[in-house]
C-alpha cells in the first residue's frame, strides 16, 4: 500500500513520504536526506526507543528511591529512633533505680537489682544496635555521642558497683560519694549524649519520611511521561494521516502501556504518600512529642533525685523543675496537651490525656519535695522521693511513665501500620515500570519498523 503525502502541518510536511528521494549532494543533499520519510522514521524510532528506556530507568529509580525510603522509615529509621529513645529511658531509669535503692538501705531489693540490671542491659543492647547502624559517613555528632556512651557506660557501672561494695562493707557515706560520682557521669556524660543521639535518629526518621513522601522526582517522571506521550500522539497522528487512517498498533500499544503505567505510578504514589503522611501525622509525630514528654518526665525525676542527694552544696533544681514542668504541661502549647490533641479519639491521645491528668498529682508531690528540701528536712523528703506508697513521688512518676509508655506504643502501632501500608503501595511498581518501558520500546520498534519496511 502506498503512503499518502502528509499535509503541510504534519511533522513530516517538509518531505514527500510517498517517494524515495534521489541521493542529494552537499548541504542541500544532507538537508534533503534528513527530510526524507525513512530517515524521519528512523530518527523517530531511535528517539522513542531512547526516551522509553530512559523513562523506564528514571521511573524505576524514582520508585526504588521512594520505596526504599518508605522501607527505611519502617525498618531502619523508626526502630533506630525507638532504640535511641529507649536508651535514654533505660539510662535515666538505671540511675534513678540505683540511687533510690542505695538510699533505701544496704540490702538492695531483688526487684531493684533486676530492674537496674535490665536497664543497663537494655541500654547496652540499644547502644549496640545504634552503633551497628552507624557508618563512617554518619553525622559526626552522632558518632561522637555513641562513642561517649560506649566509653562512659562502663565507668558509670563501675562507680555504682563500688558504691554498693562500700555500702555493703558498712561505709554508707563513702558509698554515697561513689554513687554521687556515678550520678555525675550519668547526668554530665551519658544522658546528654543519649539525648543527642535521640535527636539525631529522630531527625533521620523525619528525613526518611520526607524522602518517601517528597514530590520532585515523581513529578519529573510524570512530566517525562507526558512528553513521551505527546511525541507518541504526534507520531501516530502523522502516520494516521499518511497511511490513510491506519492505526499503528505498535505505537498504540506503547501509548496504552505508558498511560497505564503512569496511572499506576500516580495512584501508588498518592496512596503511599497519604499513608505515610497519616503515619507521621497520627503516629510518629505524636510519638515524638510523647517521647520528648517522657524525657522531660525522666528529667524531673532525675533532678529530684539529684536534689535529694546534693547535701554538700547550694544547688537547687527547683527552677529547673518549674521550667521543665512548664514545657511538659498540661496547658496550651505544652507537650502533653499537644500529644493529647494530635489524633482525637486515638488510643495514643487517650493515654496522653491520662498522663496529663496523672502528672498533676505527681507535681503536687514534687512541690512538697522541694518545700521539704528548702527546709532541710531530708528524711521526710527522702521518704517522699523514694518511698513506695501510693502518694510517693516514685508512684506518681510510675503512673505517668506507664501512661506515656502506652501512649507511645499506641502511636507507634498507628505509625507502623500506615507506614507499612504506604511502603506496600510501591510493591511491584519498580518492576512494572521497567516492563512497561520495555513494552513501550518494543511497541515503538514494531510499529515504526513496519512502516520502515515499506521503503525497502
Amino acid at each position, binding site marked *: 500500500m502506498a503512503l499518502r503525502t502528509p499535509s503541510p502541518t504534519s511533522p513530516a510536511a517538509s518531505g514527500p513520504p510517498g517517494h524515495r528521494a534521489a541521493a542529494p549532494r552537499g548541504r542541500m543533499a544532507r538537508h534533503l536526506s534528513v527530510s526524507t520519510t525513512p530517515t524521519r522514521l528512523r530518527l523517530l524510532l531511535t528517539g522513542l526507543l531512547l526516551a522509553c528506556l530512559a523513562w523506564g530507568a528514571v521511573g524505576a529509580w524514582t520508585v526504588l528511591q521512594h520505596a526504599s525510603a518508605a522501607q527505611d522509615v519502617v525498618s531502619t529509621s523508626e526502630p533506630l529512633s525507638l532504640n535511641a529513645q529507649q536508651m535514654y529511658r533505660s539510662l535515666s531509669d538505671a540511675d534513678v533505680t540505683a540511687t533510690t535503692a542505695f538510699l533505701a538501705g544496704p540490702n538492695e531489693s531483688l526487684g531493684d537489682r533486676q530492674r537496674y540490671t535490665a536497664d*543497663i*542491659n537494655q541500654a*547496652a*543492647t540499644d*547502644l*549496640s*544496635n545504634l*552503633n*551497628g547502624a552507624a557508618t563512617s559517613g554518619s553525622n559526626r555528632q552522632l558518632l561522637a555521642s555513641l562513642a561517649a556512651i*560506649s566509653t562512659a*557506660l*562502663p*565507668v558509670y*557501672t*563501675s*562507680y555504682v*558497683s*563500688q558504691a554498693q561494695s562500700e555500702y555493703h*562493707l*558498712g*561505709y*554508707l*557515706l*563513702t558509698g*554515697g*560519694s*561513689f554513687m*554521687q*560520682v556515678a*550520678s*555525675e557521669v550519668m*547526668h*554530665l556524660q551519658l544522658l546528654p549524649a543519649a539525648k543527642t543521639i535521640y535527636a539525631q535518629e529522630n531527625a533521620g526518621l523525619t528525613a526518611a519520611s520526607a524522602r518517601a513522601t517528597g514530590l520532585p522526582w515523581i513529578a519529573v517522571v510524570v512530566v517525562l511521561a507526558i512528553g513521551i506521550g505527546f511525541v507518541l500522539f504526534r507520531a501516530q497522528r502523522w502516520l494516521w494521516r499518511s497511511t490513510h487512517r491506519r492505526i499503528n498498533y505498535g505505537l498504540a500499544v506503547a501509548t496504552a502501556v505508558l498511560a497505564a503505567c503512569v496511572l499506576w505510578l500516580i495512584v501508588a504514589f498518592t496512596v503511599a504518600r497519604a499513608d505515610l503522611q497519616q503515619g507521621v501525622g497520627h503516629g510518629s509525630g505524636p510519638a515524638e512529642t510523647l517521647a520528648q514528654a517522657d524525657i522531660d518526665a525522666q528529667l524531673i525525676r532525675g533532678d529530684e533525685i*539529684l*536534689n535529694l*542527694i*546534693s*547535701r*554538700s*552544696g*547550694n*544547688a*537547687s*533544681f527547683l527552677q529547673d523543675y518549674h521550667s521543665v514542668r512548664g514545657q511538659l504541661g498540661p496547658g496550651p502549647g505544652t507537650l502533653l496537651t499537644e500529644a493529647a490533641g494530635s489524633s482525637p479519639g486515638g488510643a495514643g491521645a487517650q493515654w496522653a490525656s491520662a498522663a496529663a491528668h496523672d502528672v498533676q498529682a505527681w507535681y503536687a508531690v514534687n512541690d512538697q519535695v522541694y518545700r521539704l528540701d528548702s*527546709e*532541710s*528536712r*531530708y*528524711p521526710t523528703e*527522702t521518704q517522699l522521693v523514694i518511698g513506695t506508697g501510693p502518694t510517693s513521688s516514685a508512684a506518681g512518676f510510675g503512673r505517668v511513665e506507664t501512661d506515656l509508655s502506652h501512649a507511645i506504643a499506641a502511636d507507634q502501632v498507628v505509625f507502623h501500620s500506615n507506614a507499612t501500608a504506604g511502603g506496600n503501595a510501591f510493591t511491584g511498581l519498580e518492576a512494572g515500570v521497567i516492563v512497561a518501558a520495555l513494552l513501550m520500546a518494543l511497541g515503538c520498534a514494531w510499529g515504526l519498523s513496519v512502516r520502515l519496511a515499506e521503503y525497502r
Partner: protein
Amino acid sequence: MGSVARYRILIAIAAAVPLMLSGAACSSGNPASPVAVPSSAGSGGGVPLTPAPAPQTLYEAGSTLLQQAMGHWAAGYHDQYPNVVVKPGGGGSTKGISEASAGTINIGGSDAYLSSGDLVKNPTLLNVPLAISAQQVNYNVPGLRPGTNLHLDGLVLAKMYDGTIKTWSNPAISQLNPHVSLPSTPVVPLHRSDGSGDTFLFTSYLSTHDSNWNRNFGYGTKVAWPKVAGAKGETGNQGMVKGCHDTVGCVAYIGISFQNAANQAQLGEAALLNTANQPELPNKTSIDAAVAAFVSSTPPNETISMIDGPASTGYPIVNYEYAIVSTQQRSATAARDLKAFLHWIITTGNSLPYLGSSQFQPLPGPVVSLSDAQIAKIR
C-alpha cells in the same frame, strides 16, 4: 547480630571495671616532683610551676576552717612571687561554692566536696583537695580534771544533739567514761547557723552511727536541727569557739584549724570512737591512718567521703579541704597563675611551716597527682 553485639557491650563493661580500678590504683605520683606534668592532665599539657610576671590578684572565699591556712599560703606565695596577691575571704563553705560557681572569686574554699547538683548545674567546677583536715568535738564541762579527754561516739553525740541526752551525767556518757566523774550540767548543743562543710561532716558522722538520726535529720551543709531547749546556732568556727566558751555545758563541733583557739578558750576536746570502737584524738597519726585507707579509692574527681573509715587507729571525722575552682578562668594569665598557685599549695604549701598552725596534714602522693591532673584542666 543484635545479641552478639549486645554481649560484646556487656563484656566490654565487665572488662572495664577491673581496668578502671587498676588504673586508679596505679595513678601514683610524687608530691615533691620538680616538674608537675601529670600523665592524666588531659589535653594541653601540665601545670605551670611559676606565675606569669604580670601583677595578679586572686580572690578566695569560703571555709572558715581553710581560711587560716589560706592566709599562710597567700603570704608565703606572695613572698616567693611578689607580683601575685591572694586575698582570702572566709564566709563559710556554702559561700565559697556559690561564689566560685558565679565566677566572682577564683577559689572557693570548702570542707565538703561539691554536690552532684552543683556539678551538674555547673560542669566547669572542680573540687581540688589542698590538704587534709579533721573535725574535733569540744565541750565546756566544769569540774573535769585538766587533760581529761572525754570519750564520745556518734550515737551519744546524736542523742545529745537530738535532746535525748539532757545532762553530762547521763549513763550513756558515763558508760563511755567509766573513770570520769561527770557533773549533772545540762547539755547545750551548739551548731552552725550558716551553711557549713563542718555541719556536713559532723552530721555525716552522726548519721553513720545513729540510724535514728539518719532517718529523722540526715546530713548536709544545712540541717533541720532538732528543737532542743537551750541549743544555740553560731556563725563560723570562731563563733563556735566563742559560743562554747561562753556556755557552760556546751558541746560543739569545730574544725581542727581552730584547735589552738579552742585550747586557749579552755574547751575540752573529745576522743571520738572509730569503727573499731577505739577512742582517738585528732592528731597527725590518727588523721594520716584514717586517710590512708581511702587514698587508692579516691576517684579522679576526688569526690569522696572519708567519714568513719576502716582504719582501726584512724580518727573518724577526716576530710579533704577542697578548693572549688572553675576550669574557665577570665583570662589565660589568670588561669596560669591560679594553676601555679594551686600546685604550689599542694607541694611547697603542704609542708609544716604552712600547715602547722592550722593542724592540717599534707596530701598523700597519689592524691597530689590526682589534684594536679584536675588543676591542669583549668583554662
